[in-house]
């Protein structure tokens, strides 16, 4: 399994990409949130959370994602959820997360 710290990549356009994997669903997923906050502090204005390798998002995952949304909205940055599966998309929709992020299929 890859180290969680390598799950956040950033490019020169000020976009950071986070690979959600299944890390989000545990307390250790808080590291992803912390790193996103660090990227935002460094001037990054778009966070892409990549769900291509994520089968399911549980409540801990949702809470951590809301932390990311909260941090981004505080400084006017954008959050994109990329490639969530159908079930995860429905969950985001049901809980109202889609009001705060852009879903990219």
């Amino acid at each position: 399994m890859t180290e969680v710290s390598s799950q956040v990549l950033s490019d020169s356009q000020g976009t950071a990409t986070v690979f959600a994997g299944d890390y989000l669903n545990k307390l250790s997923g808080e590291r992803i949130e912390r790193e996103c906050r660090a990227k935002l502090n460094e001037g990054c204005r778009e966070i892409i959370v990549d769900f291509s390798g994520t089968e399911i998002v549980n409540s801990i995952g949702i809470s951590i994602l809301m932390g990311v949304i909260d941090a981004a909205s505080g400084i006017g940055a954008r959050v994109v959820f990329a490639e969530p599966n159908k079930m995860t998309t429905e969950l985001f929709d049901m809980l109202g997360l889609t009001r705060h992020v852009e879903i990219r299929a």
Partner: protein
Amino acid sequence: MKLQDMRSTNFSRFAAERNKLVHTFGALAEIGQEVSNKHNFQETIRTSLHLVLGSLGIMRGGVVRYTRFENELNMVSARGLGDDFPFGMSLCYEDERQFLANGLYPIECDQARVLPFFQVYDRSIGQAKIELFVPLVVRDELLGGIFLGEKASGEQYTSYDKEIICAMGRHIAVAISQRNLMAELERRADENRRLYDDLKMTYKDTVKAFAAAIDRKDKYTEGHSVRVGKYSEIIARELGWGEEEIEGAAFAGYLHDIGKITVERKIINAPYRINAKESSELNKHPGAGFEILQPIRHPYAGVPLAAKYHHERLDGRGYPDGLYDREIPYIAKVVNLADAFDAMTSDRPYRRRRSAPEVFEDLQRNTGKQFAPELVTALLRGMMKELSGESKDKTFRKMLGREYMESEGLMPIVRTALNGLAPTSPLTFVAYK
């Protein structure tokens, strides 16, 4: 709308409802597991807060724990409340009363402004956009609370949401209650330990006072009990005993002659070899000592037995019962050696103390007859360590005096005695050069 469309709308609504149920029940199950697994309290609460927020899509929140002594709600875990949100929040009697009356059910902060708590913290609660406060009340006890912000959907909390929050809140309350219980147990254990330490101190003081009293009665053997205590301690330490047992050996030494307080002073202080009648009178002191010590609860086992049998010998020629080797309690053998060593190395009413060569020759000669070999080895090794500077301890120097310790050839004598004992004792693997 066509029937077909209605069916598919109904189906997708049903599917969404089902997903929602699966999601919230998953969180509920996890929170129960988290609390019963009892890792670390902080982590349990942090995870629980994630689960509450994540199950219903609540943007921010915090869990506080109530401390009764300070009447304060202290933040245990918070998410998104901001740095300005107070860590500790005071409650007044009326707040507590109202929270208890409300029970474990969400209170709408907007509608609770009559309570002093919501007036005092109105600004903080408003800034953090807190909508609900859930008092964590279990069995008429306020344990803490949960602050909850707005939902990500922007919708109002439904009664279904509130039921879920209650169910999860109950688990968090149990976690806090368990933590409080643990803290209380730890506090009591601490208190007990302190009490026990105090008792031990009292015991030590009493024992030392007794030892001094015994020694005062016997003016020629002033300090005898204390020295026997010290030597017993050294032997026990060299035997590798634990600190408690070492202390026990010291106290057994301090008290070994306590029975002498029942013996006539003129017999104890006789400046000549006492006759048979006087001797039989003096020989009652071990039994008398046992009678005195037996009813007392000692923090160390064996103190009364050490007094009773400290004049027994391995060869069965001791008194009062003429016990043989294995019949003699071990602690009594330790005290016996310490006692004999002090008798040999201190002046008596009718004779001067013996010279070092005489003492060690005597010890060697009586090893296996009066003394257990490993005990003699332990005593000599303790002395050797002090002589060679291997140990910084100065007990022998204090007990025997500088002159005796620095007398010529003492170290070779002790070394020879130690090595001479080697074949009979499993404890003398290391020959002293």
